[in-house]
């Protein structure tokens, strides 16, 4: 499949199990519709990370990906969308809720949950710093929420890296309800092009 990995990662936060699903080759342009379809298949209340068909290409503004829930969606700008696509998944569906606080670590077609009690006392900048230091890679993109997000305050914001504040729907509360302190993404894959 060109410009897509053709893979959806479905991760159950309660049992910490990853399941993979193929993305249909036809009808893969409208990413938000795909997100709605995946949400109805893997309900009742999943959190989705998604990328567009052109994410990671040369088209202007094609860096964007999105975080989707039933309450709305947030575009993720900067490098996070590109890194998500290069990590091997076009879409990631997160079901359920984790028991202990920690962060989700997505890379090389692997999704794992890393427990980290210390993260809950930190703000978003410190969380990004700590995850990058722990994993030893300064190019990891971190989507994080602050202590207000952990407390599921409806107005709490999702922050992308250090500067990204595109959240207008209170996505921080959605992370807090699922007990996720942050999502760290690093992509080292490649995307095929039809006529390079």
């Amino acid at each position, binding site marked *: 499949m060109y*410009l897509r990995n053709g893979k959806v990662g479905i991760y159950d936060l309660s049992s910490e199990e990853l399941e993979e699903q193929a993305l249909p080759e036809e009808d893969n342009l409208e990413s938000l519709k795909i997100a709605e379809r995946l949400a109805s298949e893997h309900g009742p209340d999943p959190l989705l990370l998604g990328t567009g068909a052109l994410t*990671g*290409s*040369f088209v202007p503004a094609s860096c964007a990906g999105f975080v989707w829930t039933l309450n709305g969606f947030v575009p993720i700008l900067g*490098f996070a969308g*590109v890194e998500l696509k*290069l990590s091997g998944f076009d879409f990631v569906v997160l079901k359920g809720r984790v028991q202990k606080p920690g962060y989700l670590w997505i890379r090389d077609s692997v999704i794992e949950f890393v427990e980290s009690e210390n993260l809950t006392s930190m703000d978003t*900048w410190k969380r990004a710093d700590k995850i990058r230091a722990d994993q*030893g*890679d*300064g*190019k990891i993109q971190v989507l994080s929420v602050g202590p207000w997000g952990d407390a599921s305050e409806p107005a709490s914001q999702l922050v992308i*890296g*250090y*500067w990204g504040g595109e959240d207008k729907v209170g996505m921080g509360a959605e992370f807090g309800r699922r007990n996720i302190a942050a999502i760290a993404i*690093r992509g*080292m*894959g*490649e*995307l*095929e*092009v039809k006529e*390079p």
Partner: protein
Amino acid sequence: MRLMFKPLKCICCGLCETVCSLNRDSVLTPMTSSIIVHMEDKSNYFGLVLKTKSEGLVICKPEGVTTGQQAAGSGGPGAKPILLRETCDLCGGNPKCVRICPTRCIVVED
């Protein structure tokens, strides 16, 4: 003919990395390019590292451009180290990074 950099114009879009890999391996990835973007996004600091045959590594910082260094590249620990990457061949005389750079940070000097 060589590439010249104006690092203060760099906006860290990463297009030069991607187009370099596309030219070499026909895939979109920033992992194998001869040019590497260095970013410290907390301090809003961007730079470029280019591997050339004649001058070694050309390191372009906002403070200025230095050549001939053998410092490690900054593609991240999982990326191919810059010392193992191929050197810039100027795309056979028509550098693609120069054509695609939106701010004209990379220019050709005869």
